[in-house]
């Protein structure tokens, strides 16, 4: 198809490079430098998609970030992305895009029936209808609405693109490279400030790209090009295009998304698709410009109705005509520039101006060029279904209430201009108290809360000269504050056309007996009558009106609709706009892809994975791993066809019979040092610590101030003022913070230092009746007898020349030792243990066997110390000192904690000695009681006892001590199980603890 709407001699696209692309399966051509929108319009394509609710045909409305309709499903490099604005997507070779929200095709869309059902789909219809019958909601209504509404389709594939994050600091961040941004950047950069200048489009210059002005004897665009070229050369300046500053957060932190590769067929090697910049700026200059706002009239959503500024941009930047018979509908002077531009390119526009007799330089110029103009005229309605083909126009009375006789006028596009709305989003996000400017009928930034200054048309200044003067001044003034330098740049001479006052007219009344839809919010299909209805129904706050009607929501966040919505609410309510106020602007200003937000924190990078030094040995020996906090630990070592049950049973049995070795590197380790270390531990743990001799370990429990157990572990006195504390794997970081809190805040008088040594030591637990024999072979020089290294003893020695720490501690309840060496030697230690352990039939065991061993011994762990239990609940009464104070002690006196029927840890055995009890099952007296069945306790941990070869569980049971010997039921409704059980002591194996002391 030929580009019949492309002009030859105008525009900034590269005519030497033709680009082919596909839209809805059809092949078209454009040029390098086009957007998808400009290339489609060049090819005469105006039907882009269907609207959100009524499935009305939709085309283009803007030429950039403000575009409410023209969103497509984009296909690039075997990926797909929904809701891409065609006005922002740059063309690349092989680009493919499809229409959204239509089925079977954009030309013939079944959903368009909604347009005729609109009586049933008023504002808030989903709150009112689909209510009955109730059961229909999930099965019929909701799936139907879901299918009918919404935009593009999210890819369900893994995104192979790379996204990065970057942190940056600067003196001055400038958001937007229009005339005000360029001037302030230049002034500040020349004054020595470190400047970042961000432009969301691919081309710098903003309005200078399309306006007929001259600055210092150059035309606007050349001036912009030269300033940018100079800025790029300066070492203190970073200039970024395709970079949208979308969020202004606390303490002058701004976030910018830079689209590095979206305009290329595929990302270059080592270049991310997008980069998210976190910028901490000392000062911010907001030069985001302004967005043209529409005038509301009948069928103002018909394809071919565009903003006048967009029509001008398509012409001047892309050399593309939005139509060949343009009708220009305006209430101000700026649209005359669009008309003049058409005329210069041999197209004859007709201007309808709502004003009676406006006079200005540009109006005279248009007149002199012979452009046809009608004053006090409005467009009543656009006509045509898939594209405008004529318009109903009429004279309007001076009070703007009555329409004259309706006339039809032929046209193929309507370029509408309802004056300009400053883009105050960033300023508002920063906490700026915006104020209403009567002169321009819009909100502008007011008093700053953070270090931000708004310049140019974003601040409601529409004269170029005034803009440049203030922007140069602000750039200089702000940079001077930071750099203390005073290099001032003289402001260049500006020539521009002077504009006269606009007409405060924004909505064309409906002619008698006509019921045209007049859209306020194009993206969400919110019409004037929807807002009127919402107010009739009692919604008053603009925030409520927004949520009820969806005005100003969705991906464009009402960039073109907000102000007209406010005008409507205030005129119905007979209030002035500032007393209605605007809805809160929140980041992001434009949609940001989830990939950019997530950055590199994906897959295994979503959290750091920690591995012990022995990890590769475990891998080689068929370990199946389990997450333990952020660590990976072997759960069991698979042999042949074994599953979890068989393998862990084999491993646990071997510990009870021979000897096993378990990687305990992941346990938290904290060095506690200082002359007051003993006193400190005495306050942290519930038991007594002052008399622990050097070379001895002790088991300790620490509480939170509310009396709940926080963590447990053994701590060893290495030397007079040096203790080695161990914590559970998951609590290591919390315990360290807890200790630091008390040392720094509560007891700063204690001379103690704590530091994490978790990663400095690799640990191996050797457990089983043959562990002593193995230890002797590993450390031939030490006396490993019960006298030489008694239970809870500690020794230092050498493991084949490597320094090692040996602790006689046991979690498994067997005779056991723990050997620690520096992490680098961890694998060496492990291999030696395995090698020498062979003659004692050693086997490695994982966390599953470890659990089995501790459960049948009745040793409490995380599942009992679950953040709800106190030491008494866990049978740790003996560890609670009556004599001294410690963290949490005072809470243990609380009534509920000393209640006679307080929960206790007990053992549970199924009566049939066969059925395993699922963890989490409830213990009840009567399995068939009326629901809710009173719960007496719950199963905290279950295992297959290798000692007795039957299932065994631990439970936390009300009045547990007195329940031993009683028969109850374990109920697990999720697994549909009701198991008769007997309550026994939690110490199922070796209740006297003889083995660990043997």
């Amino acid at each position, binding site marked *: 198809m030929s580009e019949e709407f492309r002009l030859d001699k105008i525009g900034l696209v590269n005519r030497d490079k033709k680009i082919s692309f596909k839209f809805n399966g059809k092949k078209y051509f454009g040029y390098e430098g086009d957007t998808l929108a400009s290339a489609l319009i060049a090819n005469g394509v105006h039907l882009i998609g269907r609207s959100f609710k009524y499935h009305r045909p939709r085309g283009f409305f803007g030429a950039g970030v403000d575009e409410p309709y023209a969103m497509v499903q984009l296909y690039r490099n075997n990926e797909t992305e929904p809701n891409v604005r065609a006005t922002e997507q740059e063309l690349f070779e092989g680009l493919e895009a499809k229409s959204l929200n239509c089925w079977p095709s954009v030309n013939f869309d079944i959903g368009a029936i909604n347009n005729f059902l609109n009586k049933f789909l008023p504002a808030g219809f989903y709150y009112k209808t689909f209510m009955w019958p109730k059961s229909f909601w999930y099965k019929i209504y909701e799936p139907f609405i879901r299918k009918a509404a919404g935009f593009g389709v999210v890819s369900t594939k893994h995104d192979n693109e790379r996204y990065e994050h970057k942190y940056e600091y600067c003196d001055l961040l400038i958001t937007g490279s229009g005339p005000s941004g360029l001037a302030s950047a230049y002034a500040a950069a020349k004054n020595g400030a470190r400047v970042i200048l961000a432009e969301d489009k691919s081309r710098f210059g903003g309005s200078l790209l399309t306006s007929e002005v001259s600055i210092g004897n150059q035309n606007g665009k050349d001036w912009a090009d030269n300033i940018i070229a100079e800025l790029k050369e300066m070492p203190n300046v970073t200039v970024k295009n395709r970079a949208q500053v979308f969020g202004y957060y*606390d*303490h002058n*932190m701004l976030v910018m998304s830079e689209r590095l590769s979206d305009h290329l067929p595929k990302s270059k090697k080592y270049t991310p698709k997008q980069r998210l910049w*976190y910028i901490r700026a000392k000062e911010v200059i907001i030069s985001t410009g302004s967005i043209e706002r529409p005038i509301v009239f009948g069928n103002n959503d018909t394809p071919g109705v565009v903003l006048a500024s967009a029509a001008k941009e398509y012409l001047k930047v892309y050399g593309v005509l939005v139509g060949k018979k343009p009708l220009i509908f305006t209430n101000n002077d700026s649209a005359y520039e669009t008309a003049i531009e058409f005329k210069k390119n041999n197209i004859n526009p007709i201007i309808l101006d709502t004003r009676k007799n406006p006079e200005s330089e540009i109006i005279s110029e248009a007149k002199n060029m012979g452009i046809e103009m009608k004053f006090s005229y409005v467009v009543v309605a656009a006509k045509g279904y898939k594209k405008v083909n004529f318009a109903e126009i009429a004279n309007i009375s001076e009070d703007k209430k009555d329409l004259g006789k309706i006339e039809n006028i032929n046209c193929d596009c309507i370029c509408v201009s309802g004056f300009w709305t400053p883009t105050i989003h960033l300023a508002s996000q920063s906490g700026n108290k915006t104020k209403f400017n009567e002169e321009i009928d819009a909100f502008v930034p007011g008093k700053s809360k953070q270090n931000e200054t708004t310049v140019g048309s974003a601040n409601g200044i529409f004269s170029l000269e005034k803009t440049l003067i203030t922007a140069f001044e602000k750039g200089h003034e702000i940079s001077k504050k930071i750099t203390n330098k005073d290099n001032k740049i003289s402001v260049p001479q500006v020539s521009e056309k002077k504009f006269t006052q606009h007409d405060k007219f924004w909505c064309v009344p409906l002619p008698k007996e006509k019921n045209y839809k007049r859209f306020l919010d194009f993206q969400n299909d919110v019409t004037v009558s929807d807002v009127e209805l919402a107010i009739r129904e009692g919604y008053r706050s603009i925030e409520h009106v927004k949520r009820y009607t969806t005005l100003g929501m969705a991906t464009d966040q009402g960039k073109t609709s907000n102000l007209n919505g406010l005008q409507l609410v205030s005129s119905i309510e007979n209030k002035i706009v500032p007393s209605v106020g605007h809805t809160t602007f929140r980041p992001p200003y434009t949609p940001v892809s989830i990939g950019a937000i997530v950055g590199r924190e994906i897959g295994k990078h979503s959290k750091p994975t920690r591995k012990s030094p022995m990890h590769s040995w475990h891998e080689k020996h068929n370990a199946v791993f389990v997450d333990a906090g952020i660590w990976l630990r072997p759960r069991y070592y698979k042999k042949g066809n074994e599953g979890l049950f068989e393998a862990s049973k084999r491993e646990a049995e071997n510990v009870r019979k021979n000897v096993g070795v378990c990687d305990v590197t992941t346990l938290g380790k904290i060095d506690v040092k200082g002359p007051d270390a003993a006193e400190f531990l005495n306050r942290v743990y519930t038991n007594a610590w002052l008399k622990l001799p050097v070379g001895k370990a002790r088991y300790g429990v620490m509480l939170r101030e*509310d009396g709940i157990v926080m963590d447990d572990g053994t701590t060893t006195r290495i030397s007079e003022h040096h203790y080695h504390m161990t914590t559970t794997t998951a609590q290591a970081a919390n315990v360290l913070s807890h200790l630091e*809190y008390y040392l*720094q*805040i*509560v007891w700063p008088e204690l001379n103690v230092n704590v530091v994490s040594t978790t990663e400095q030591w690799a640990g191996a637990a050797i457990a089983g009746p043959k562990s002593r024999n193995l230890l002797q072979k590993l450390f031939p020089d030490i006396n490993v007898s019960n006298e030489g290294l008694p239970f809870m003893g500690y020794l230092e020695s050498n493991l084949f020349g490597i320094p090692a720490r040996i602790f006689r501690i046991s979690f498994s309840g067997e005779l056991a030792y723990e050997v620690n060496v520096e992490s680098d030697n961890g694998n060496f230690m492990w291999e030696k243990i395995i090698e020498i352990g062979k003659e004692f039939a050693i086997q490695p065991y994982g966390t599953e066997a470890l659990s089995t061993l501790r459960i049948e011994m009745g040793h409490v762990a995380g599942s009992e110390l679950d953040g709800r239990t106190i030491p008494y609940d866990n049978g740790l009464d003996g560890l609670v000192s009556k004599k001294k104070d410690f963290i949490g002690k*005072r809470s243990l006196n609380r009534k509920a904690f000393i209640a006679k029927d307080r929960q206790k840890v007990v053992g549970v055995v199924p009566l049939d000695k066969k059925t395993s009890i699922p963890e989490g099952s409830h213990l009840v007296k009567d399995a068939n009681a009326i629901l809710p069945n009173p719960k007496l306790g719950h199963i905290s941990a279950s295992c297959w006892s290798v000692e007795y070869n039957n299932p065994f569980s631990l439970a936390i049971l009300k009045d547990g001590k007195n329940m031993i010997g009683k028969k109850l039921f374990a109920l697990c409704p999720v697994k549909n199980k009701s198991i008769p059980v007997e309550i026994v002591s939690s110490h199922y194996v070796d209740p006297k603890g003889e083995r660990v002391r043997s």
Partner: protein
Amino acid sequence: MLHIKCPHCGLRSQNEFSYGGDGTVKRPDLNKEVSDKEWDTFVYLRKSPRGKHVELWHHISGCRQWIKVERDTATHEIFKTSKVNEDI
């Protein structure tokens, strides 16, 4: 993201810190008679004022010191920070 001036390290971003709650709470002295009410207040009751508030923050990915921060809970303005053993 807040910008917090650690009295030991200087201005750092919030993501280096972890929030530590009300900085005005004082733990009752050890080995002293403490009434149920006093203890209950210390363990459970925290003020959540709108406006100026002295808070504890822990410079967890930095110097690991607990610090005091006087912050407006509504506007996030930080007025002052100090070492934890200094009056703010």
